[in-house]
């Protein structure tokens, strides 16, 4: 039996958290001691939904003490508060619905490979295209939507890089795990329904798009240096409006490290399409 802390960082999640709670209610936990912890980066009455929805798993809820700290910092905060005595953390997006057997599958994978720091559940029904090894399940990086994290590895790696507000912090954590001798796994049969990207047709996604590209540029600055950043910004210049790229440049100058890490590892690699990291299946 393991102690598992399920971590959910909320942001304006009132409309989506109901289905997550239903998924958590149906989640098989085996004999594990599972507690769910919510951190709200943008309260909008989500706590009322939590209070009014029955959940058999014990849970906690708190509003972020520092406002919207972002995805990675939010999980770092939760891990610092609740992850100390847990063997595993299960990171879940508020717009995700875990399949009922997802957690047990992820734990089995983590136990099979003691060096696995991260075990990712496949997103469903629109599956991520990144490549993985069918035999070892090794993959270059794990997405944070539904991710089992070995607590001791998370602590040893120092958690997420909080300079990344949203997007790419999971790629960075995965690369650091590989470099430090851990492995990253992708279990295609542990599944998590992820709907929100598709859901709000009229929603303004400009902030998300900004952070997506800022994250991409930061990752290149941190791991590869100037040429990779210049190449990426040139790609953005070709594909995005000028004001969007200008804002990325300004924010990148504020957070980018002075020198790249200069680490060479077979798993730390970009993709020529400028969108993916590492090889893809399609």
């Amino acid at each position, binding site marked *: 039996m393991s102690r598992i802390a399920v971590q959910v960082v909320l942001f304006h999640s009132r409309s989506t958290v109901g289905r997550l709670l*239903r*998924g958590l209610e*149906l989640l098989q936990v085996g004999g594990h001691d599972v507690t769910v912890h919510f951190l709200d980066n943008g309260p909008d009455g989500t706590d009322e939904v939590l209070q009014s929805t029955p959940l058999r798993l014990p849970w906690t809820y708190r509003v972020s003490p520092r406002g919207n700290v972002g995805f990675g910092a939010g999980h770092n905060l939760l891990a610092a508060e609740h992850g100390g005595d847990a063997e595993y953390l299960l990171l879940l997006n508020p717009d995700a619905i875990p399949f009922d057997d997802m957690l047990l599958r992820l734990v089995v994978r983590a136990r099979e490979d003691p060096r696995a720091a991260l075990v990712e559940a496949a997103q469903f*029904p629109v599956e991520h295209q990144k490549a993985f090894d069918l035999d070892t399940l090794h993959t270059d990086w794990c997405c944070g939507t539904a991710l089992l994290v070995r607590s001791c590895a998370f602590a040893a790696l120092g958690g997420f890089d909080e300079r990344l507000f949203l997007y790419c912090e999971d790629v960075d954590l995965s690369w650091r795990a590989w470099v430090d001798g851990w492995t990253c796994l992708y279990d295609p049969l542990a599944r998590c329904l992820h709907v929100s990207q*598709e859901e709000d*047709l009229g929603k303004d996604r400009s902030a998300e798009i900004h952070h997506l590209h800022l994250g991409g540029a930061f990752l290149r600055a941190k791991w590869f240096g100037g040429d990779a950043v210049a190449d990426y910004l040139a790609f953005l210049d070709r594909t995005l409006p000028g004001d969007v790229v200008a804002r990325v440049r300004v924010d990148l100058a504020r957070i980018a490290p002075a020198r790249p890490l200069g680490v060479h590892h077979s798993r730390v690699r970009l993709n020529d399409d400028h969108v993916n990291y590492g090889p893809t*299946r399609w």
Partner: protein
Amino acid sequence: MARPAGDPVAVVVRFRPRPAGVAALRETLYSVAGLCHPPAEVVVAVDPGPHGTLGGGSDGEGGEAGPNPGHRGCVDHVDALCTLLPRLRGLVDPVVVAAPATGWAGATAAGLRASQASLVVIMSDAEVLYPRQTALLAAALGRRPEAVLGYGGVDVYRGKACEDGFIAISRRRLWPRGVERFLVFDRPCLPLAACMVRRRALEAAASRLDASLGDEEWSWGLTRLLAAVGDFAAVDVCVAAHRLESANSPGWAVDEPGGHVGNLPPEGGVTVAVGSLAAVARRWETEVAALRGELEEERRRAAALEAKVVDLGRHAVAVEAQLRRLEASVVIRGYRALRRHFSPVAVLARRVPRRRRVC
């Protein structure tokens, strides 16, 4: 999640009991649970297979899926289905019915009978819906009241199906932009999971199709019949995924955006690779000949009815004339009676006191 306003949608899933079938159905139902425009009704139509092993009414009507003791294999799959549904309770709660016949014809008939929504999605347990499928297609049909079918693109995943689910190895995108519906008569076909059909049109078309047609022939036939009665409304988004085992023969080929694949002509559209086009053509010729025969028979019946109507008309005229004569006769007799009643002699006779008359 609150159901958005709009026409209600029924999702009919054809479930084929087989190894890994319940695992596939589970994923299909999870995808239904993720729909932004949740369906009003979800029906799982259990395909009885070639030997009709799943019970139901003795007259072939669909009913609650029940085990038939003589066919343990299928029963095991239905038992697995029964253990699956509680694991999804609250996310998606389908009605399970036994299809009256194998194939798309039976599943569609059972699904239509078990649902009422005005818009219908029919799909197999090898397919999953993307979250916006119902929202986009219902909106497209809402904007085009004359359209009978809405459709979008499909991702075809190839991979390994196992007892625990499907592992995707590769993906190909079927991008049916600007399908000209009349081309459906020539060669292309739309994957059913990427479509939404108006119930009335679906009922009319499905009832005309030969239930013994193979899966691809039936779905092609359906789109041909629908194309004959109404327009198609397209959305420029992939709305569903079809999963194929790598060993399977290619089911679909498609023109990619900005180009085309294989030896397909470049005009666009989705094309289905049917096993034998000649066989399909023969079936259609037979059906057309049968329909022509029916039409001639109907014409003969109509002519006979028309003659009968003319006879009846003549008879009605004669009866009416007789009635008028009778009426006139009644009026004259009444007039004479009144004259007699009010004649001076009769009046005087009534005024003479009875006593005097006696004296």
